[in-house]
């Protein structure tokens, strides 16, 4: 197999989705966060955030805890060990993709630099 046919490392689709990536980024930067904080930081709508959290919980990446504080329900979300390792693995994969793209660009650049010039207007 030549270098050109080497498969790209593919990121985890569950983590790669932007809304879930934003949620996991928040949770990887703190020990736990409540629903209101997640909603404010990520800017997701209540329904979307709820659905994404359920997806992440089903996949075993987060733990959702509900407790009543001052007669109000507080939903707290925490990253599981698996969630932590998944997000770390995701960033490693992205770094590998970035590095391979950089290498590819460097390899191709000196071959035909004229191709980078814009097409003349007709």
């Amino acid at each position, binding site marked *: 197999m030549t270098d050109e046919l080497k498969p790209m490392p593919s990121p985890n689709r569950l983590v790669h989705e932007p809304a879930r*990536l*934003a949620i996991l980024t*928040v949770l990887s*930067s703190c020990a736990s966060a*409540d629903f*209101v904080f*997640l909603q*404010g930081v990520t800017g997701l709508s*209540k329904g979307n955030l709820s659905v994404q959290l359920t997806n992440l919980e089903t996949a075993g990446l987060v733990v959702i805890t509900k407790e009543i504080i001052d007669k109000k329900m*507080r939903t707290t979300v925490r990253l599981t060990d698996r969630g932590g390792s998944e997000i770390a693995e995701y960033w490693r994969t992205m770094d590998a993709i970035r590095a391979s793209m950089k290498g590819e660009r460097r390899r191709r650049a000196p071959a035909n630099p004229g191709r980078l010039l814009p097409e003349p207007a007709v």
Partner: protein
Amino acid sequence: MTSKAKALPGVETVQQQARTPNSSSEYGTTPNLKKIRYLTEHFRQLQGLDSVVFGAFWAFYELVPWGPWVFLWFVVLGIGLACSRCDYFEEYYQWRFGWNEPPKNRELESNGHLVSFAVVLALIVLRWLGNKIGCPELWLRTIVLFGFVCDLGWSRQRFVNPRNAYLLPAILAVIFVYTYPTLHPPDSAHTAFWKALTDLVMPVFLIVVGLCDHLLLLRLMPKRISEDDYDG
């Protein structure tokens, strides 16, 4: 969306309704992860309203001369401290922006604001003691500045930290106000001015930095969560 889907009359409307403009991620674009990470890590530091209240009380305390009413001013200051650190602001920030728990290994970093606050409190006590034991005030003020410099140093992303835009100039201004009269003693006409300036610079510093912290938090997290939304 394919050209076939565009041809269907209902599809476009449903898609437009689904794309509510409250999230970049709901548009399918990459969210600003740097901003998200910064906001999560510095959430406690950006809650600056307690500094504003404390600075205002401190300014009040500085403006009133020491005398037989000193005990009263300590009571007033105590009320100020209680107001600034009581649950009121914590509850407000929790209601307005939510709540997060800092990681176990970075609790001190997240609570750098509190440490600075404790240092400022120590200044008040030391100043009172300093009057008794003749301790130089400049040394005491240096403790306060040291607290804020530590607060600054605890930020891991200090080179891209937006707080630096106002915290660094404010610290430099305080250092200037404290050191200039020492290096170039003012003449008699300006002595009162410099004394007032050195007395009030720290309270003003706390008020300005606290306000800027709060405004930065509002800017980074502008969406107001209504009471109805707070049901988890």
